[in-house]
C-alpha cells in the first residue's frame, strides 16, 4: 500500500513537507530507532501531559467565566424570545380552535329565529369589514427586498406603502402573511418587522385584494410608489409589483375593545 493514498495535508502538502515535529525523528535517529525508555521519560511525559492539561483546563474555565454579562443576557433574551414564540404559536392555535367552536355553537343556537339570523348576518358583515374573515380574490403582490448591511427600508416606509395600497382601493391587505385589521401596526425591531406584533422577515411580501389593473394604476400615482422607486435607485432595494389571479389572505385577529363601548341608538 503506497503512501500516495490520501496524503498528509492534501493540498497543503507542498507547504509543509512533514508535519510532525522533526525533533521526534532526530531523537529516534540518535537512539538508533530503539524506543525511548527510562525514568526520565516517564517523568517528562507526566509533567508534560499535566502541563498541557493545565493549559487546556485553565483556558476552558476562563472562556466559560469570561462570557461577559452582556453576552449572557443576550443569550437569555434569545431564549426568552424563542419561548415566547413557541407559546404564542400554541395560544394562536388554541384561540383559532375556540373561535371556530364558538361560531358553530352560536349558529346552532341562533339559526332559525328571525332575530338570530339577522344578528348573525350583521356579525358576518362586520367581521368582513374588520378584516376578521379569511378572504380570497385577485389583486397585487408586492415584494420588497432591502439589501445592504443596515436597513434602508424602515417601518415608516412600509406603513406608507400599506397606506398607498388602501388609497388605491385595496379591499384586504396582508403583510408577510399577517392580515391587517383596524388595530394592527407595522413596527420595526432592528432587522425584523413586527406586523400586528408578529415578526416578519425579508423578503417583505404585501398582498392586496382588489381590482388588479385599477390597483396598479392608482398605486403608481401614490407617494409610496415614488418613494420606493427612489429606493431602488439609491439603495438598490428590490421592489416588484405583480398581478395575481387568486390571493388567499388569512383572517385578522383584532383584540376586542375593552375601554371603548358602543354608544348611541340600539
Amino acid at each position, binding site marked *: 500500500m503506497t503512501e500516495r493514498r490520501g496524503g498528509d495535508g492534501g493540498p497543503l502538502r507542498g507547504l509543509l513537507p512533514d508535519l510532525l515535529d522533526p525533533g521526534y525523528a532526530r531523537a529516534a535517529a540518535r537512539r538508533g530507532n530503539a524506543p525511548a525508555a527510562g525514568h526520565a521519560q516517564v517523568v517528562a511525559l507526566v509533567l508534560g501531559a499535566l502541563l498541557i492539561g493545565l493549559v487546556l483546563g485553565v483556558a476552558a474555565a476562563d472562556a466559560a467565566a469570561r462570557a461577559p454579562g452582556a453576552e449572557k443576557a443576550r443569550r437569555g433574551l434569545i431564549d426568552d424570545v424563542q419561548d415566547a414564540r413557541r407559546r404564542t404559536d400554541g395560544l394562536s392555535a388554541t384561540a383559532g380552535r*375556540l373561535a371556530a367552536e364558538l361560531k358553530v355553537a352560536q349558529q346552532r343556537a341562533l339559526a332559525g329565529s328571525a332575530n338570530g339570523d339577522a*344578528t348573525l348576518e350583521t356579525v358576518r358583515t*362586520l367581521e368582513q369589514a374588520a378584516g376578521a374573515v379569511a*378572504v380570497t380574490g385577485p389583486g397585487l403582490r408586492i415584494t420588497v427586498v432591502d439589501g445592504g448591511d443596515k436597513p434602508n427600508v424602515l417601518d415608516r416606509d412600509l*406603513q406608507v406603502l400599506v397606506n398607498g395600497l388602501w388609497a388605491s382601493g385595496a379591499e384586504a391587505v396582508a403583510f408577510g402573511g399577517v392580515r391587517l385589521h383596524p388595530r394592527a401596526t407595522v413596527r420595526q425591531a432592528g*432587522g425584523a418587522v*413586527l406586523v400586528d406584533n408578529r415578526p416578519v422577515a425579508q423578503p417583505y411580501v404585501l398582498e392586496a385584494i382588489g381590482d388588479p389593473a385599477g390597483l396598479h394604476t392608482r398605486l403608481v400615482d401614490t407617494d409610496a410608489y415614488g418613494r420606493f422607486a427612489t429606493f431602488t435607485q439609491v439603495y438598490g432595494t428590490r421592489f416588484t409589483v405583480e398581478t395575481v389571479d387568486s390571493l388567499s389572505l388569512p383572517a385578522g385577529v383584532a383584540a*376586542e375593545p375593552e375601554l371603548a*363601548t358602543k354608544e348611541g341608538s340600539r
Partner: protein
Amino acid sequence: MLRNRLPTVLIAILCLALGLGIATQVRRTHAGDTLADQRPQDLVVLLDGMQQREAALRKEIADAEAALARLRASGDSSAAALAEAQRRADALAVLAGTAAAAGPGLEIELTDPQRGVAPADLLDAVQELRGAGAEAIQVGDVRIGVDSAFTGSTGAIELDGVRLSVPLTILAIGDPPTMDAALNIPGGVVDTVERAGGGVRIAQRDRVHITALRTIRPPQYARPAG
C-alpha cells in the same frame, strides 16, 4: 461484497447530510430566523411585541371560553346566544367604525399655521396610537378604519378623500397615559409636528366621544374563503 459498497454508501449518506445542512442553513439565513444576530435592544422590542401578542391571545381565549361556557350553561338557549352575538356585533362595530363609541382616551388638538405637516406624519400618529392600544380613532370628522388612507400633500392632507382642515381635532379611545407617551417619544409625532412649525396639545380625558362613522363598502373582489 457489502464491504465494497460500504464506502460508497457512506459517502452518499454524508453528502446527503451535507446537502441537507447547507439547505437548512441557507433557508434559515434567508428567513432571517437568525435571532442570534440581533442586537439586545432589538431582541427587547421583539420580546415586548411577543408578550403583547401573548396577552391579547390569552384574553381572547378566556373570552371565547367564557362565551362558550355561557352558551352551554344556558343550554344553548337562544336568549344567551343572541346576547353573545349582539355583544360581538357591538365590539366589531366599534372596531370597524360603524358605531359611535365612548371611553377614556385622548383629545388632541393639532395646529399647522405654516402648513408643514405631511400626510405621512398623520399616518405615523395613527400607527403610534394603535401601537399604544387605541381601540377607536377619529381624525377631524373622519372615523379611522382598517382601510383608512392619508393622501394629499404637505399642508393639504386628505383622509379617505376628505380634506382635513386645521386646527385638527384627533380623538382616540384607549389608555390615556400610554397613548400620550407614544406620541411624545423623541423624534415622534409631537416632535415632527413641532419641527414643521405646528403645535400639538394633548389632553387626557376620562371620557372621549367618537361620533364619526364609517360606511362599509361591500367588497367587490374579496370573497370569504372556504
